[in-house]
């Protein structure tokens, strides 16, 4: 006996195909909507801020006059901050990832570390601010320095980097490791000469994305009490400094309307920085796409 009636199947086929088309459109619209939000955001900011983007804006310190206000200190400060965060978070993150992926045995302790890392990833940034204030600024006497802020931010993005590095390391085929061990290489030799070179693109991509999150963070810095008003560039890791998001936040709260536009100009610079960092990440990802 036949259960599947061909004529019924064919009749239903049309409507099934139609439903498929309909939902495809819905899914497409949903995707576009997300992109559309980005477009609105960008258009608004660009239309407000481009007027204030000129050389003076980059070469001036903050000012009480909107026309003279610049982001020199904030931009340089953000870049300095990154210079602390990048090595610290990457050394810690990649080290942890290597330990977990290559050395750690599968046991309760490893599970615990792993769980701890995922939990840290979800801890609100402002809580990291409280941690940084207590440990780095006060207990270690680092004050409101680049180092204190950098270490705080490093811990904030550490989980993200660890997870990215773990994935990159895991993606190195085990055949590569076997080939190395098969020649009598030791574990550390295999890690440094085979695993890491192959995993570097993935690690970098993940790290840059994490770094760009750190660059845009405001809340922990507010808690640390990072200054906004300063007229000098940092000269050491222990110098005080300011960052782009803080400067923008400060401008946006000013009474004078012109400062809203200055803030928008600051946002453009910040977004440009982020887009540059993201593009580097994408470039690395595409350039070194796995070949095995």
């Amino acid at each position, binding site marked *: 006996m036949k259960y599947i009636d061909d004529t019924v199947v064919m009749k239903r086929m049309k409507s099934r195909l139609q439903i498929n088309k309909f939902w495809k459109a819905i899914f497409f619209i949903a995707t576009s909507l997300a992109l559309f939000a980005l477009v609105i955001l960008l258009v608004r900011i660009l239309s407000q801020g481009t007027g204030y983007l000129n050389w003076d804006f980059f070469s001036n310190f903050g000012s009480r006059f909107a026309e003279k206000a610049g982001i020199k200190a904030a931009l340089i400060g953000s870049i300095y901050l990154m210079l602390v965060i990048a090595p610290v978070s990457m050394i810690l993150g990649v080290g942890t990832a290597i330990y977990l992926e290559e050395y750690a045995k599968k046991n309760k302790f490893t599970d615990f570390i792993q769980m701890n890392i995922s939990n840290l990833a979800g801890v609100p940034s402002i809580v990291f601010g409280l941690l940084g204030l207590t440990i780095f600024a006060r207990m270690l006497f680092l004050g409101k320095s680049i180092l204190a802020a950098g270490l705080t931010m490093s811990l904030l993005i550490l989980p993200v980097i660890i997870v990215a590095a773990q994935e990159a390391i895991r993606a190195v085929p085990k055949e590569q490791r*076997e*080939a190395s061990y098969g*020649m*009598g290489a030791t574990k550390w030799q295999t890690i440094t*000469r085979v695993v890491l070179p192959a995993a570097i693109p993935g690690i970098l991509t993940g790290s840059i994305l994490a770094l760009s999150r750190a660059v845009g963070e405001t809340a922990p810095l507010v808690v640390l009490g990072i200054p906004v008003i300063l007229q000098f560039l940092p000269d050491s890791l222990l110098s005080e400094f300011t960052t782009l998001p803080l400067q923008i936040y400060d401008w946006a709260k000013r009474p004078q309307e012109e400062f809203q536009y200055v803030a928008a100009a600051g946002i453009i610079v910040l977004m440009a920085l982020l887009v540059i960092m993201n593009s580097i990440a994408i470039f690395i990802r595409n350039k070194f796409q796995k070949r095995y």
Partner: protein
Amino acid sequence: MVDLMIKNSDETKVKSPKQAVSKLKNTIEKKTVFGTKNFNLWYGSHHALKDIQLDIKENDVTAIIGPSGCGKSTYIKALNRMVELVPIVKTSGEINYRGRNIFESSYEVEELRTKVGMVFQKPNPFPKSIYDNIAYGPRIHGIKNKKILDEIVEKSLRGAAIWDEVKDRLNQNAYGLSGGQQQRICIARCLAIEPDVILMDEPTSALDPISTLKVEELVQELKDNYSIIIVTHNMQQAARISDKTAFFLNGEVVEFDYTDKIFSTPRDGRTEDYISGRFG
């Protein structure tokens, strides 16, 4: 095991006087490279190798055949202790390499593996230049002199019959090569540390017929200088290139003998079934 070997070869129908002589010579003169005694291996609770007895002789090509999952790869990986990379592995019994038990705690795996090279099923060059691939082994063992490295690279690539194809592009990434070339690069990489034994785990199964042929020819050439153990699921291949063949089934050695003997008059019914394609 040696007794068994002699008994086996006694049973063999000798086909020609020359063959008989060569076999006799083998049995008497050839040194044992790997002596496997009562060797057992478990993956967790899965008993993957059962009481293996197998003596592998110098300068032989020894083929290991058997259906999927019978333990061929496991056995060959035990010979250079690669199998220990799987954390749940447990072993008992002995595998003696040149008379010394490789599972002795004082035996450094790195030392063993510099002596016992391995070529894998899927070509697995490093994503580096061809040159760096070959120089990898010597370098990790502390050879830094550029001139010596150059010589080693050339010699190894020649040894793997691929020098002419790649000599002009030593600095290009090895992944730009075809699968067959990649596999020969892997063989060259293995030759670069001049091992004593070369283990090959289905080295041609991912290759096209022509590349397969090239690798087979290469194996024949290499046997003058190396002892070679090759896992294959292609019985014709085993017949073509090996001196001796071991037939594994369900983690046991069903039969181990001269290749022509195995393929012409196997003692065990299961061997016959397998060879005639009734399963696998």
